[in-house]
């Protein structure tokens, strides 16, 4: 954590940690309850990933102190996120391309 390390500042942090803990517990219950909703698969995936992203942001922002972290670490993480999304979407590119699909031979006159 960068910034104020005084006793008062740490005690204020502890108060925030407890609030984040409560929010994470509530969001976990909401995640489970949302799975019982009668929605399509794509809507269910969207909803679950939104809630998971909010929970992950709370953990990264407050427990890992990213909210007040130095720019060096933020830039490393932005680079990581960029390559992470490339890796996540590579299968989709592979899935939608036509390589390996049999195309009947057509003679060119």
């Amino acid at each position, binding site marked *: 954590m960068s910034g104020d390390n005084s006793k008062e500042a740490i005690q204020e942090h502890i108060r925030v940690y407890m609030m984040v803990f409560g929010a994470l517990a509530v969001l976990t219950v909401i995640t489970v309850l949302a799975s019982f909703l009668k929605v399509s698969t794509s809507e269910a995936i969207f909803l679950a990933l939104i809630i998971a992203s909010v929970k992950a942001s709370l953990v990264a922002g407050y427990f890992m102190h990213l909210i007040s972290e130095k720019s060096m670490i933020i830039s490393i993480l932005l680079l990581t996120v960029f390559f992470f999304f490339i890796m996540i979407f590579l299968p*989709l590119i592979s899935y939608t391309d036509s390589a390996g699909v049999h195309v009947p031979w057509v003679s060119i006159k």
Partner: protein
Amino acid sequence: MEIPYSIEEREDTGLINSKLGIWIFLASEVMLFGGLFSAYIFLRLAAPPGDFEYWASKLSVPMATVNTMVLISSSVSMVMAWASLKLKDFSKFKMYMGITLLCSALFMVIKYFEYTSKFSHDIFPSSSTFMAIYFTLTGLHGIHILGGVVVMLYFYLPFSHQLWHDQPEHFTNRVEALGLYWHFVDLVWIFLFPVLYLL
């Protein structure tokens, strides 16, 4: 010999070396788990309709929900252990680190019962594509938990406490690096839980 930049920040990075090191390590971990999540998406897209849903229905959502709460609690106790060191309260650090260790043990015990209940029903990684990726992802995550427990035990047991007496700030910075790793393990589970159990 004193390790350089373990307490004071480097001028060029503005960080202590351990913090920069653990974040670069975590970046590589993002790519490791990212690769497996990517494999999950690919396998799910290529699977027959309803196949992943059918196999996912064989998993125990209540057990996984309890495990999620356990891991979140361990993350809170870990950050409290670090905050206790910042407040120079070593006995509270021991207490919170002990709670984190207990939560980690509880997580692994629940995971053990989950795995053995699958095996007792003749469900193995070879049973289906879903089970293969399920055991791979949760197994790798479990190995990360065990790795964290080993480091936590090092800081919990007396043989590392001399550093606290000699260089409290250095000890605190080491615990902060451990905490960052532990929160990352929690973060991975936050995504594993809905992806494997609920979708």
